[in-house]
Every structure is written in structure tokens, then in C-alpha cells.
């Protein structure tokens, strides 16, 4: 499981940092972006194994980012976890359509995020 690369996307710098530290401390390589557009570029250049993204962000939202990823054959299967403060997160049908692996709500536990990342990656490699 070591050296798996995770892209963390959030416009809130402290959130990005705390998730990044938690993952790095547990053997992951982490790249970060502060909006969907920046993330899209990083996905193409860095080829992460998994993306953790917020929903509401300036320039490009998390959902717009995932829609963009799914329209590209190369990233159709790229696992994505949503981390959002929205009470209702995203509707189940949208979640299924966008192939979102998991939705975590803020406030969140970095422990749970780590666990979720590990679980999702395990499912993918299984």
C-alpha cells in the first residue's frame, strides 16, 4: 500500500494540510489543489491513485471536477472520495452516476478519512 498517490482538493488550506499530513504520516504520497480546475491539471500530470475533493469551491466545484474526469476515458475509473460540509452532500443517483466511491461530511475525522482511503484503494486493487 505504500507510495500510493492521493490528490487532496479543498479551497480551505487548513483542511488540505491536515488531510495531507495524516496521509503522509501513514505512507501516502500527497499532492494538493485548491479548486477543481487546478485539480484537473494535476490529475493529468501527476496521475494520482485516488482523489479526495470538497464540493463547494471557487472556479470549479468538486462535482464539475468529477464530471470532467468521467468524460475522459483515462479517468473514468479513478476513485474519488467527496469531503463536504454540505448537509445533503450529493444525491444518491448523482453519486452513482459520477461513480463516487464514498462521501464524508465535515466536520470529519482524519482517522476516518485515512481508513476510507485505504478501504477504497483495497477494493480497487482487489
Amino acid at each position, binding site marked *: 500500500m505504500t507510495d500510493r498517490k492521493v490528490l487532496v482538493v479543498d*479551497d*480551505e488550506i*487548513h*483542511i488540505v494540510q*491536515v*488531510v495531507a*499530513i*495524516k496521509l503522509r*504520516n501513514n505512507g501516502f504520497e500527497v499532492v494538493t489543489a485548491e479548486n477543481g480546475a487546478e485539480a484537473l491539471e494535476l490529475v493529468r500530470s501527476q496521475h494520482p491513485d485516488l482523489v479526495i475533493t470538497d464540493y*463547494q*469551491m*471557487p*472556479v*470549479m*466545484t468538486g462535482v464539475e471536477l468529477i464530471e470532467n474526469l468521467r468524460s475522459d476515458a483515462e479517468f473514468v475509473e479513478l476513485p474519488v472520495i467527496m469531503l463536504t*460540509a*454540505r*448537509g445533503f452532500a450529493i444525491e444518491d443517483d448523482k453519486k452513482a452516476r459520477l461513480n463516487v466511491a464514498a462521501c464524508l461530511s*465535515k*466536520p*470529519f*475525522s*482524519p*482517522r476516518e478519512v485515512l481508513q476510507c482511503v485505504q478501504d477504497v484503494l483495497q477494493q480497487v486493487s482487489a
Partner: protein
Amino acid sequence: MWAVAACGTAALVAAAAAGVGTAVLVVLGFPVVACLILTGLILLKTAAAIETLCAALEKPDSAYHFGEGSTLLKPLYTALRRLLEIHREGQHRQRSQDSEMVVRLQLLERQKKDTEAIIYSIRDSVLVTDASDRIIMANAAAERLFGFTLDRDQARRLDEVIRHPDFVRLVGRSIQSRTSHVRQELTFGDPRQPKTYDCIVSCVEDEKNAACGIVAVLHDITREKEISQMKNDFVSHVSHELKTPLASINAYAEMLVDGEAQDAETMQRFCTVIQTQAQRLNRLIEDILNISRIESGLIKVDKETCSVAILAQNAVEMIRSYAMEKSITIKVPAAIIHDQVLADKDMLTQVVINLLSNAVKYTPAGGMVEVDVEVDEVDCCVRLTVGDTGVGIPSDDLPYVFDKFYRVEANKKQAKGTGLGLNLVKQIVETVHGGRVFVTSVPQQGSTFGFTLPLAAERVALNV
């Protein structure tokens, strides 16, 4: 009697004016026709004829004037007189009954008009139909809402006049269900800007409990719906805003507990994040509470004379670290003389901080924010402006930017916000200090927000 016959023609002419009865009497002789006439008069109740006849009998030179020995005429005359009296009494009674009836009718008409005037002046739409579904009453609001003019002479069926299937169905439901009332929220008007009405349709029953129509009352609840929507949006926004700092506090605290801070420096950083995010949370709650307090008039205002330029300089220092994070330069106003206003320092500082943090928030990295303070001697006021080189605001949005919960759609993606900051600015400047807020903006070039406050009284006195 022959004398009567001899002057028959002349008498006929004279009597023609007085009445046919008299003429016949004169020509044919009194005894024969008297009874006929009397009967006729009784039947016809012709008061004018009786009057004429009596006058003719009383006339001293009348040929049938009852003089000495006219024993035949006297009872007849008495009978006629009596008849006339009876007739007059009847007529009098009729007249008084008639006038009473007229008064009653006028009263009823007046009451009807009063009731109609009341119903017509109701702001809600009121519409009444009879048992055959014909519209028998509609006030001005109803006519406007449904776009028709009530034809009072020819009541038309509801479904012929009203082109709103949902409303017609609601009325149908009321009649069928026979419950005291049915209620539904319906939308009317332009689909792009629909108006919502609370429609209550009540069944009208007659004394035999049979349905004899409906009365519909439609109350415009568009504004209430908007306010309710705004409140929902507000709760959604605020909860999102509250959760963001809370998420950091929670996550960093857990990291500390789990020993994820591997050195003292990292531990220090985690603690600082928790502290700053707690402060951010507190600021947000304060904003909400302050608006609520100002609106309800419960806020404690502590006014003192203070310099706007110095206050602005202090506010800039408070926001500087935030601006530096985005590499934004803030140009500080120079201290000027005679710029004192009577203000609550904390509240006014809050105003300047809100304007500054907005300017920084909506200005791209590397931009510039300029604070300026000047004294307007003519209008006896101090003007503070905060100009930025940010994204700007479309002109359509400008009139609303100080409204509570309003957020510029085009700039929503640019930064997060509750839509409360500028409303708080307006409330503090205008409601608490009697000043004015203003804004000018050019999209993609920048915005200038500012306010004017009246100069402190002693300063104004000096000018005079």
C-alpha cells in the same frame, strides 16, 4: 232639471275638464247615473273624479246644488264625501307606507354598497359563485388576478371566465367535498416571476344546508415565501460557514490526540490553527448576533468622538495578515485633522474590517486595496472609501449588495460568504449612526465601497 238640459252643451264643455263622470251626470240627469258613477268611483278609486264631483255639488250656482228640499242629493253627497275621506285616509296610509319602504330600500342599498366597498377594498382577491357555478361577485383584486371584468348583468360560469385549471379544480373540490373549506397554494402570473397565493375556498350553504355556491379568498404569500426561502438559504449558508472552521478545529484536535504532530513546531502549528479557526467561528456568530441585535434595537451603543482615519488605520492592521496571504497591498489612509465623528468605535471598526476583508476576498492575488478618508466641509460629513482591483460587481446586482443574505451570483465561486457582512455594514452605518453607505463598481476592474458619517457636533459648531 230642464235648465240642466237646456244648457247641456255648455255644461258638457265645462264639465269635460272636470271629468267624464260629471259630464254624463249633467247630460243624463243625476238620479240615473249617480249610482253608476259612485260604483265606478269606488272601483276605480279615482280620487280626482270624486273631488270634482263633490266640488260640483257644493257649487252655489250648480244646477244640482242641494238647496231647499233636495232630499235626494244630500245623502248622496254625504256618501261621496265619506268615500273621499276613506280614499284620502287610504292614500295617506299608502303614502306613509311607501315612504317607509323607500327609506328601508335606501338603507338596504346603502348597506349593500358599504359591504361591497369593504369587500372591494380588501387587498386579497375575493370571488363568489352561485349554485350554478356562475360568478356573482368578484372584487377588484380578483378581477386583476384572474384578468377579467365581472359582468353584473350576465353572470358567467367560473370555468368560462377563469383560465386557471388548478383553481377551477380547487373550487370543484370544495363543492364536491362540502367541507367547510379547502386550501391550496397556487401560483399565478408570469411563469418566470410567479406569484404564490394561499387559496381558501369555502362552501356557502343556505338555510336548508344545501350548497348554494362558494366564496374564494386568495391571499398573496409571494413575499412570505421569498423570506422563508431566504431563511432556508441562510441556514444552509450559515451552517456551511460554521462547519468549515469547526471541521478544522475537530480535525487538528484529533491529530494532536493521535500524536500526528511529530515535532514541537508541528504541534504549535496545529494549536494555532485550532485557535484561529475558533476565532473565525466566533466572528461569524458575532455577525449573526449583531445583525439580529441591531434589527431588534437591543444593541448597546457606546458613542464617543473618534477620528475616522485613525480608526481605519487600526482596522487595516487587523486585516494585514489576511491580505499578505494573498500578496495584496493595502494602501493606508494618512491621518487627517478634523475628521472626528460621534461613533461606537468597536462597531465602526467592524464596518471597516468587513469592507476591507471583502476587498481582499474578491481581489485576485497580487492586487491592491486602497483606503481613503476625506472630510466634506460642505455637507459636514466624513467619507471613507475602500477601493479594490478585484472582480467587480455587475450593475444589475449593485442595488442589492447591502441586502441581507444577498450574494452576487457571478462572484459566488470567487469566495465563500454568508451574505451578512455588507448588511451588517449598512445596519451599523445607517441605523446606528445615521450615515449612508454606497458602492460603485466596474466588472473585472474593481469596486469601491464606502460610507459617509456626519461630523461630530463640536466640529460642526467650529465650522460655523
